């Protein structure tokens, strides 16, 4: 019998491993909410265009309302001949839309397009998300590095509020505070905490214990629906002054969740499978249509989905009410505007 080792080519105990080159860890306490303070970066340059200027430059953006279909529906036609563009946010009154030439990490143009065809265009250091304040006077904007900015809608003046990194759900509350997600990093946000940023302080406070928040909806009664990823699947939790309760368990594979303002309806997508609808607490989930990126209207009585290269307005039974060749959104939308 030999005494040779029997594990010649497998992993060896870690204690015997190389210790050369002591590793310097990056120590960021991920559970600690990142906040940062306002920076001294100068505001971005702003260019004002009339409707004629915009058309001449090939960057015209037109807003159309369709009250016969839904009082909050806004169709955004991008006549630009350059980049296809994406709608980031629509003001609550539907009179202004925030559009970007591209979601980008380094450099992007934010266009504030008004109903009369005029625009304010400002360069941003990347652009990931935007949302209007309830009165439409300013926007919260997340740049490519995850920093939070305030952009005045009337002038385009921009000021950096916090360094983040932030990502994802972005909502400006009536008192000027901002709901958003503080993430472990913009590129790999495996931790995403729902926080409230108060620009006046400035301060950041965590709102929920959910580890990976993908979205949130400020409900009509002031409570917050939190859309959170869990290892077992997607859930929707309701944050109220009385505490937190589970509103729905959507299971694995659910994505792009949209909650109506009364929390009476939840729509979501299963990638490659279509759009589902649930009416909690008693309803059962049902697939209502093909497509992706569902967005419920404020009253929850219709929804927009992306399907076949355009945007389709659906009834709750999946019936097609209208089709738009380009972008359509509901007034007041922010993170959920951007399929």
């Amino acid at each position: 019998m030999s005494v040779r080792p029997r594990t010649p080519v497998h992993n060896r105990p870690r204690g015997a491993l190389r210790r050369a080159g002591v590793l310097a860890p990056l120590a960021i306490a991920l559970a600690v909410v990142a906040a940062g303070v306002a920076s001294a970066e100068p505001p971005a340059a702003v260019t004002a265009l009339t409707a004629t200027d915009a058309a001449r430059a090939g960057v015209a953006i037109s807003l159309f309302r369709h009250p016969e279909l839904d009082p909050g529906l806004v169709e955004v036609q991008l006549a630009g001949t350059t980049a296809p563009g994406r709608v980031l946010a629509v003001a609550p009154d539907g009179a202004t839309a925030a559009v970007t030439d591209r979601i980008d990490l380094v450099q992007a143009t934010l266009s504030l397009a008004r109903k009369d065809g005029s625009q304010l265009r400002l360069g941003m250091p990347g652009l990931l998300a935007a949302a209007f304040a309830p009165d439409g006077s300013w926007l919260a904007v997340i740049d490519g590095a995850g920093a939070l900015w305030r952009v005045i809608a009337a002038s385009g003046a921009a000021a950096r509020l916090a360094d983040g990194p932030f990502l994802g759900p972005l909502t400006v509350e009536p008192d000027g505070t901002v709901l958003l997600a503080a993430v472990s990093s913009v590129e790999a946000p495996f931790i995403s905490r729902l926080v409230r940023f108060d620009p006046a302080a400035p301060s950041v406070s965590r709102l929920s214990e959910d580890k990976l928040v993908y979205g949130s909806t400020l409900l009509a009664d002031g409570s917050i629906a939190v859309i959170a990823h869990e290892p077992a699947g997607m859930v929707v939790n309701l944050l109220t002054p009385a505490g937190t309760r589970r509103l729905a368990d959507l299971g694995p594979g659910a994505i792009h969740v949209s909650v109506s303002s009364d929390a009476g309806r939840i729509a979501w997508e299963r990638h490659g499978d279509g759009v589902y609808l649930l009416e909690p607490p008693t309803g059962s989930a049902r697939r209502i249509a093909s497509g992706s990126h569902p967005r419920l209207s404020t009253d929850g009585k219709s929804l927009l989905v992306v399907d076949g290269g355009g945007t389709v307005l659906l009834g709750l039974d999946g019936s097609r009410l209208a089709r738009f060749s380009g972008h359509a959104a509901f007034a007041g939308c922010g993170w959920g505007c951007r399929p």
Partner: protein
Amino acid sequence: MGVPAMTRLARVATTSVLAAIAILLVGAGAALAIGDYTLPYYSPGVTLSYGVDRDPRPGVQLDWTGHTWNDGTPHWGRVYDNHTGADYPMALRTQLAAAKGGIVVDLEGGFGTQEFGEFGNFVQVRHADGRHTLYYHLASAVDGGIVVAVNQAVSAGQWLGLSGCSGICNGPHLHFELLVEQGQNLVWVDPLPARLYTTWPPRVPFLASYVRESNPGTEVIQRGRTITHWVEFRNVGGRTWRSAGYPGRIALGTWNPAKHASRFRASDWPSSWLATPVDHAAVSPNGTGRFTFGLRGAASPGSYRETFNLISEGLRWFDHGHLGGYYIPIVVTNLTE
């Protein structure tokens, strides 16, 4: 390419700075001994594009070589500001593998394979040493981007899924992170100084464990005669072993020193140091491969031992950094004994 650099005045809230510093110091000790992790992909052509920024200060970048950059600009092959992982550009749908055995604790596969600007698809694996590895920007689950499930045990090198460009990603690549548990937190560590994430293409996750052999004791060989010996190893890595093809075929060769001419070479050996390729045309991960070869008695009677190791020909010896050696005790006798 990953997220380009951006200048930030303060990444971490004032109230968290002290905690972060404390964790930094603690993490420095815990970050040692990670040589049993391997590259999380198989493609030999993949190299690092951006490593971890080891300096959390905005605009200041400390790359994996120890060089500090104060310009906040991305530096290809080195670092970009506040980068938390290692980026490896690769073609869409490139196979990705676990850097080490562990348990899948979380994943997301619902986003589109190239759905830009969302949270992105990922797999998170917890390892027994308290570290976690993260694999980001994966392809959609419906496109085969994720082939594991939460709570599933995975072995080192086991296929996790396919690369994509979901999330904050402007070109197909893998964003790979290594983290260590510190209380309730996970703390980033940079393994690059330990050459874990080497750009050396041949470092691929070939791993094996000993199973059994034809004679676990001493082989007694009459002088001038040849006996047959076989040994079996389990493929505990992520790549299929193949008996043909160069580079890459799996074989048993002499070791210590590597590729020495064996005095026990038999006529069936392909070369003076190469005893045999694996017997089977292919041995899948978790399969067992047998290596059968002859041993011819040395010229002089006596006691010997011959040491072998597994090699992926033209690529690497298995477990190059910490070999234990597999050897066969041999006694050569005269014909008359």
